[in-house]
């Protein structure tokens, strides 16, 4: 199996099979998060196509030493979907070269993605329900502390504490598991 870095080198040389391989590798993962945010197959698939077309157009600017390709793909997918959901323009920092993201583990193989899926779900399942709901509202709906508080009717301080505890637990659990994994 070719690494992401090797496929990106081929992409720079305009090798379409490299783009197809990256699509096969990450298309399902991105489609899932896009659909989860938008609940609209057509909109999700439009964005999915646009992201890979952007990757094709701007691949020469990618530096694997600066950050992770799947990390960038996941961040841009979420940003685009939330922007579409909120009917606003995508935020700055979408360029491959601008966005430095370090994933704590590799997700290049199907097996690694499956394993990570279990680990993330395990970490989320371990959270108290209120913390999990707040975290999902922030990640999948793009809400800030204040927006979550106004939607749930919970005091702002309570929402902040819940989210802080949730990310702290997530950081500890995924960090520990990555160290062992």
């Amino acid at each position: 199996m070719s690494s992401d870095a090797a496929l990106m080198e081929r992409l720079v040389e305009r090798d379409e099979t490299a783009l197809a391989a990256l699509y096969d590798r990450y298309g399902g993962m991105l489609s899932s998060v896009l659909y989860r945010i938008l609940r609209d197959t057509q909109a999700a698939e439009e964005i999915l196509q646009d992201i890979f077309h952007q990757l094709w157009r701007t691949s020469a600017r990618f530096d694997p030493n600066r950050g992770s390709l799947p990390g960038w793909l996941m961040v841009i997918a979420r940003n685009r979907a939330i922007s579409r959901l909120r009917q606003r323009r995508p935020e700055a920092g979408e360029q491959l070269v601008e966005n430095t993201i370090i994933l704590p583990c590799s997700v290049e193989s199907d097996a690694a993605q499956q394993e990570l899926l279990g680990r993330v779900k395990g970490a989320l399942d371990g959270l108290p329900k209120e913390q999990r709901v707040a975290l999902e509202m922030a990640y999948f709906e793009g809400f800030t502390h204040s927006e979550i508080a106004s939607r749930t009717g919970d005091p702002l301080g309570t929402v902040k504490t819940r989210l802080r505890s949730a990310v702290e637990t997530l950081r500890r659990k995924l960090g520990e598991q990555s160290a062992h994994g």
Partner: protein
Amino acid sequence: MNGHPTREEDFDLYALGALDGDEKQAIESHLAACSECARKLAAAKGRMALLAFAAPRVEPSPGVKERLMRQLHSTAEGRAYSPARIEPESMGGGFFGRWWAAVLAPAAVALALATIFLWIQNNRLHDEDQRLQSALRTQQNQIDELRHIADVIQAHDTVSVLLKPMPGMGQGTAQVLYNSGMGELVYDGWISPPPPEKSYQLWMVPMDGNPISVGVFNPVTADSSTWMAKMPQGVTAKAFAVTLEPAGGMPHPTGPQVLVGPAT
């Protein structure tokens, strides 16, 4: 914020987009000047990106990849645009220099205004072009989807299953057309919109084993809707069911059955 963020979670909360107001501004102003914290933020962005894996798996339709590969051929490769450099000509001095300057200065202003006007027009045309291309892509997607649906419906080994409402679970009805060999399914039905924070989820119940999630959907009206989904190839269904689940769906059915239909 002059110093580093005091707690590690601040990076995660910023990466998550949960901070707003002064908290967000403080961390942004610090990050701009601190490479150590920028590195921590890169790691936090990676951790938060992993939350994508909490989304139920939804495979894109095969048409997306086909359209993407077609798009590579239909889009011109980027060409470096290097406008020709215009060197100012010598104006000469004295009376003639001033005379030329008097004539050329208003002309230069007019040229600048014309350039700005053309630039605005160009941007407008570019936006319009983008909008039309997007509309074209949407229509192409719809045509591909309809062709795909027709393929499944017309296949001789496609099985039709009627899903009826369970008592006390409101109104609705649906028909599922599935083709085990193609691994494709068409859902066509109507059902009342789900309550807040809930989604409907369609399950295939195989002859052996646990129900398999086929799709999560959230109708906003009780109008009829038709959509396609992938299902495992070569698996024969015993029944199909629509359940009411927490928003976004679940890995296994947990909520009440709303529509049910035996496949045999």
